[in-house]
């Protein structure tokens, strides 16, 4: 397996700062609520919150959802994955939800997350914020805030490492052995 660096820690930081700035420009800050998708979307969500805190002194509520129970491939999975809890700290009625995930690929995770959020209430708007958009969509889903856009072949994996839960930090493209 070969590993290629796509984003350095510095680039991740810059991307998140730019995204926070764009959110501030385009959304009503008073209505914002960030929801991250486990396991790394929630960490990115918290980092965006911190950037907001520093810039505007406004504290945005940050929630987390685990989409395992909403997956569309559930019945074909073998061993069942562990389920983390979903915690949304505020009523989402009338809110603008910024849904945060690390990598956008087929769009199936986002679909599941949208279904789950709607089970908590009726937000005014949901925007999608992604650190890496790797293409290869299978669903009509389009991100609103993107850190980095890159075309990656189906055989490769985009790995996001964050220092909160991984040993290192960075975005990597891992080439899988086999056909290529």
């Amino acid at each position, binding site marked *: 397996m070969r590993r290629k660096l796509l984003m350095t820690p510095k680039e991740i930081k810059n991307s998140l700062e730019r995204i926070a700035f764009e959110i501030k420009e385009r959304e009503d800050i008073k209505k914002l609520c960030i929801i991250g998708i486990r396991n790394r979307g929630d960490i990115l969500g918290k980092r965006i919150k911190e950037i907001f805190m520093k810039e505007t002194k406004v504290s945005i509520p940050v929630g987390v959802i685990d989409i395992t*129970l909403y997956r569309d491939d559930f*019945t*074909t999975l073998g061993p*069942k994955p562990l389920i983390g809890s979903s915690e949304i700290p505020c009523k989402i009625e009338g809110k603008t939800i910024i849904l945060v995930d690390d990598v956008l690929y087929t769009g199936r995770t986002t679909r599941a997350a949208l*279904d789950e959020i709607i*089970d908590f209430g009726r937000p005014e708007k949901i925007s999608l914020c992604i650190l890496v958009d790797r293409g290869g969509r299978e669903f009509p889903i389009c991100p609103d805030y993107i850190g980095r856009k890159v075309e990656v072949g189906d055989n490769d994996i985009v790995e996001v490492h964050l220092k909160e839960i991984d040993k290192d930090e960075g975005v990597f493209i891992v080439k899988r052995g086999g056909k290529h």
Partner: protein
Amino acid sequence: MKFILERPVKKVPTLRGITVANLFFEPSTRTLNSFVVAERTLSADTINISKSFSSVAKGETLLDTARNIEAMMVNMVVIRHSVPGAPHYLAKRINSSIINAGDGAHEHPTQALLDLLTIREKFGRIKGLNVSIIGDIIHSRVARSLTLGLKKMGANVVLCAPPPMLPEWFLQYGVELTYRLPEAIKDSDIIYTLRIQTEREAESFIPSIREYRKFYTINYGNLKKYAKEGIIIMHPGPVNRGVELTPDVADGPWSLILNQVTNGIAIRMAILYLLSGRKEE
């Protein structure tokens, strides 16, 4: 799984398209309805079959009933039966996942798991806790499953009952046995009471219910006299008020009886989740 029950929409689509048959050949309110709520929360479709309203009353065998239900494209079967080993018997003969919801006086695994969850929620641990199980031990599937679960998790278990209801073979699990209630109450963190199972002729094991009440009923008086601070009372239900427990004990601040019921749904959801889907090759 419990967090789902606290949401505005208490439903997740996980088991959509999966049908679960609840075969209850013995009466049940808690276990049956708990399974039904768990199944519906996970979006499974359910059918409920009981002894008196099915062809079992016309003489159909268990295996035939199960095979016919499976032919209706059912994916999972929850079974309660008065014969020990009935779920195991079915599991070997049909393809669906089988969940034991209590088989005679043998085992009641989902009850034991929900009790362990309730204890861990309250104390943050199970290891090292002193648990006394008091009542009709010999007829109780709960006593057996719970003892195995508690010992596995490292708790100390004392069983207490009148001598005819306290079989010595329980000693093989590394538990202590006692005939005296004060000994069972003293030092314990949790008192787990069991119902006298009159449907299994339990009354013939003791001289009278009246005598049992005199020596084995947990009441406020003996709690005050023997129990340590912060004791917890549990019961798998249904409670015979005034026999195992007096109402003031069953409804007191130390009672986790209703927490057990809520946790039952969460545990059953987790079990359905883990057993659904493709069987491993």
